[in-house]
């Protein structure tokens, strides 16, 4: 076998620890008088009309919060931190029973004045050298105390588990003679395992990031820089956006109801996947999801004990999927089981024929996904009609045409190997470190020198962490009084150019450039990047020029004969008129009537309206 130079690892260990609440026992050290911040959150309730529903409880037990007599304000220290208070706090933390396994230190205004946090961390480290400590000025040195405190707590909660896991993995990797291990983060870049172990919270949203990086790569290969992506899996579908060739970022994330405000690739999850279960409600409407059969027991047609009708069962009954053609994992599909499951719904609006019910299920699933795709784009001021749709995952490409029609989109990109796009994204992801610092200054009062001075420590840290990488500078700006920021790239140190760039970006995103409000520079960001070698898509085995066969499928209530093509082996330049099924090893695509696909040299299929 070939030697392996680099192993790039995407892991759900952090996400699962949050979902299952199996992290470390954390003690939180915070400013006295504000010990309840994690419980107060942002004061909005969990559900507008379900008055019994509460937010998930914080990761820290209330008894494990230690208040510190100290206070810093916007201009500096208001109440000093006395040495005897430091001693008292250390003793209080040591006295916790059962003892804390990790510590989070998050004081008010530490994003700007970190001295008190530093002293507490130093004293705690001396007293408890074996216990990991996360400090808010290191984890997320930006304003908004709830999000910073929560993120710091997440880091402490995850760090012991993640660092132990990565330590083991690194030893295994070495033992197998693999040259290098890298770990995927939420921002769509990779870190060396040592760095990842102390940035455990930055792995929490990394799961879906790989697919978006892969989508971006395919978009670049086919010359489409603006993409709406949809990764349709078993229980849910993840929507994301690529604009101007870059994945859209988001720092307002939550995992399992816990705020994690670190840079991340924007993902909006919709509960519609292949395993989503269909039912008829008491008012007579057909619902699909949010309940899902998942992978186990899975759709009825998997023959693993599931007997409730799912989207995958519907696709099989419509013959979009082929019972003769096993899915990934060598799952054989049982059409009779799928039909039985659909029949169990009884009469659906007068129809009891499984094919009619199946057509209804896919129409509803598409409506749910279309609504989510519209929401994710419109909420960011982007018009889907000006973008291309890139559906991936095993089942996503079956829904491309329906979704594009619902959203008024004209172009669909079916990536090569749609079921393995996340892996491709992982392999292609750059080494990346995101660094942040707070500034909070009016742009007007800022000189070029001020800006260079403020960026200097971040640039130095970037150079240290990613030697020989490129350093990209960004700033978060906002109009005074607004609660949201816009990130713009910085070229040169001229504040006037930043202001112009901000106004242009603001107009592009929000349709206006404010109304004479002051512009503030809130945060500085440095992204240190080192791109790896990009994968090549060309594939010598791409020789298929014509369909293998045709088979009758059901589309919008009508039976039509679809040509069937080998998706993974299509030769460049081949055109495919709908209706057509493109069957690959790990995914199936559907080109509907009124659409025509053209195979790009990369192996992607560009599907456009005829």
């Amino acid at each position: 076998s070939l030697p392996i130079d680099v192993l790039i690892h995407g892991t759900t260990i952090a996400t699962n620890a949050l979902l299952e609440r199996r992290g470390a026992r954390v003690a939180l050290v915070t400013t006295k008088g504000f010990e309840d911040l994690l419980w107060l959150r942002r004061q909005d309730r969990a559900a507008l009309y379900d008055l019994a529903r509460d937010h998930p409880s914080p990761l820290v037990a209330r008894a494990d919060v230690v208040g510190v007599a100290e206070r810093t304000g916007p201009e500096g220290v208001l109440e000093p931190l006395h040495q005897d208070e430091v001693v008292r706090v250390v003793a209080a933390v040591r006295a916790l029973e059962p003892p804390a396994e990790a510590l989070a230190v998050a004081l008010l205004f530490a994003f700007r004045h970190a001295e008190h946090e530093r002293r507490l961390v130093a004293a705690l480290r001396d007293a408890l050298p074996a216990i990991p400590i996360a400090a808010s000025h290191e984890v997320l040195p930006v304003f908004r105390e709830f999000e910073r405190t929560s993120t710091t707590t997440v880091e402490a909660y995850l760090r012991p588990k993640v660092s132990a896991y990565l330590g083991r993995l690194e030893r295994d990797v070495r033992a197998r003679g693999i040259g290098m291990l890298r770990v995927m983060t939420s921002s769509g870049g990779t870190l060396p395992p040592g760095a990842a172990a102390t940035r455990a919270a930055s792995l929490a949203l990394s799961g879906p990031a790989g697919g978006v990086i892969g989508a971006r790569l395919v978009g670049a290969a086919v010359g489409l820089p603006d993409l709406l992506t949809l990764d349709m899996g078993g229980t849910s579908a993840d929507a994301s956006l690529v604009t101007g060739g870059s994945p859209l970022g988001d720092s307002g994330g939550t995992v399992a109801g816990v705020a994690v405000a670190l840079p991340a690739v924007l993902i909006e999850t919709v509960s519609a996947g292949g395993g989503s279960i269909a039912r008829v409600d008491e008012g007579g409407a057909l619902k699909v999801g949010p309940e899902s059969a998942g992978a186990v027991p899975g759709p009825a047609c998997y023959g693993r004990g599931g007997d409730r009708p799912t989207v995958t069962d519907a696709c099989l009954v419509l013959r979009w999927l082929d019972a003769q053609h096993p899915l990934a994992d060598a799952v054989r599909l049982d059409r009779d089981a799928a039909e039985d499951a659909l029949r169990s719904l009884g009469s659906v609006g007068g129809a009891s024929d499984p094919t009619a019910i199946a057509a209804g299920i896919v129409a509803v699933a598409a409506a749910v996904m279309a609504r989510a795709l519209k929401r994710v784009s419109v909420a960011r001021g982007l018009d889907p009609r000006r973008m291309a749709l890139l559906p991936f995952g095993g089942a996503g490409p079956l829904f491309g045409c329906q979704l594009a029609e619902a959203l008024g989109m004209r172009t669909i990109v079916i990536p090569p190997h749609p079921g393995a796009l996340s892996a491709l994204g992982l392999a292609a992801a750059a080494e990346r470190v995101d660094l942040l610092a707070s500034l909070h200054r009016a742009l007007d009062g800022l000189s070029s020198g001020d800006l260079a001075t403020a960026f200097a420590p971040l640039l130095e840290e970037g150079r240290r962490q990613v030697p020989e990488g490129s350093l990209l500078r960004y700033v978060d700006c906002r109009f005074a009084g607004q609660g949201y920021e816009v990130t713009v790239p910085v070229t040169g140190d001229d504040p006037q150019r930043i202001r112009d760039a901000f106004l242009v970006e603001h107009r592009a995103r929000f349709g206006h450039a404010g109304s004479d409000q002051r512009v503030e520079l809130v945060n500085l960001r440095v992204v240190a990047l080192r791109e790896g070698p990009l994968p090549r898509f060309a594939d010598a085995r791409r020789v298929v020029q014509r369909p293998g066969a045709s088979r009758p499928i059901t589309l919008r209530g009508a039976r039509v004969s679809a040509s069937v093509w080998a998706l993974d082996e299509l030769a460049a330049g081949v055109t495919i008129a709908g209706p057509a099924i493109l069957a690959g090893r790990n995914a199936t695509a559907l080109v509907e009537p009124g659409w025509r696909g053209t195979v790009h040299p990369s192996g992607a299929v560009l599907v456009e309206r005829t």
Partner: protein
Amino acid sequence: MTLDAVGLEVMGHAFASVAEEMGLVLIHSAVSPNIRERRDCSAALFDAAGEMVAQAAHIPVHLGAMHESVAAVRGLAPGPGDVFILNDPYTGGSHLPDITLIGTIDVDGAVGGYSVVRAHHSDVGGVQAGSMPAGAREIFAEGVIVPPLRLTADVERFLLANVRTAETRRADLAAQRAAVARGAEGLRALAARYGWAAVRGAATDLLDYAERRARDALGRLTATALTATDWLEGDGVDDADLAIRVRVDITDGVFHVDFTGTAPAARGNVNCPLAVARSAVLFVVRTLLPEDVPTNGGVQRAVRVTAPPECLVNARFPSAVAAGNVETSQRIADTVFLALAAGGIAVPAQGQGTMNNVTFGGMRDTGSGMRDGWTYYETIGGGQGASPTAPGPSGVHVGMSNTRNTPIEVLEMEYPLRVKSYALRPGSGGVGRWSGGEGVIREFEALAPMEASILAERRRHAPRGAAGGRDGARGSTCLNGAPLNPKVSVSLAPGDVLRVETPGGGGWGEPERGDKR
């Protein structure tokens, strides 16, 4: 035509998606924080007959509240493509800061429906910045009144000449107009995709479907002549309690609330038009329905609200109404819940029932020897009432509001204020089989001379427990330790400390087998 099971769901998502898109366009392109961040706004699509087909209500106070706006416009012989504006509470509005734009949607040259967008503007003129003056006795003090008018450039100029922050208002109105246009485009796109006859038929079917679901769910409850009385603690002019009295009947799946016995028009600003009372009742009904019932006019068909003319909740021109949306709406929802609980219906105990509105304002140096006015407004969460199945959440907004807090680090960087503490209020939730949620303590220190005004409730009458659960603790507002009235304006000197303790939620069920928190 009758939609089948699939069509109902597909078209339900399609209409909801148009309303959602309108709301997102508004929130995304508005300028003022009150719309962008507090999301005090709403968007809805109506059919040509004036029934609401879909709504994106971001906070419950806007729920179903725009029916009257469309009715007012329909009386003016609207032509396809016209856009109207109004804020008059006596002709289709709620309170003056809520400016509503109503676009008639041109489908093939006829009025195919209405695209309606309402947003709370943080100033619409009147005697005080913010246009919610405490102590107002007539609506004329609360701002500029806009009856339903075609929105022309002249009308906009006239409106902007009457407000304090004209540029921000202009930008927010532009965002509203863009949202109205997006709604019209969305409906036309559906017509192009499915055919207009099918879309129109689908709207009718969806209304029937929602009505059927609502009446099904309500039909499982029986209630006859359930009554309750609760109190508003003064009207901003006078400190005396004002009764809100309801009688609830649920017959054949129709939820009827009658307000006979409610106090007559108040002298201050706690009056509200019947549309606001209806929103509060609709909120209660919404909590009784399964989550997936679409919010449309079909649900409203299952709700009837009646009130004697000229009572507090059926405001008489020219009564002041600014606080009606904010606090009276809360009390109406509370009173209806209380009546249901008294009838043995499984509803939560009362929550804090107030938004604890706190406004600070003063003058500050802007550099170069200039001085400028500033104001800061926030509302503070409290305890939710416990429900029959769970404790009440703590430190949240209840009822008709759900806006987020302002981070302390933002507040202190931008205003001459310091937050001394921000904490849950231990023991404030009423005990019960399930405990009520806890209130909040928020303590502000003034760093400069300033005015503060507080508009709050539940300082005298505690949130009630249900099914034997105990009441939540009452709220309080103290200046340097001395208690203040529920609705009051005070001057603060540097070093003065204003401490707000918000009410806890009521408990649910007898606490005999230990108090589950």
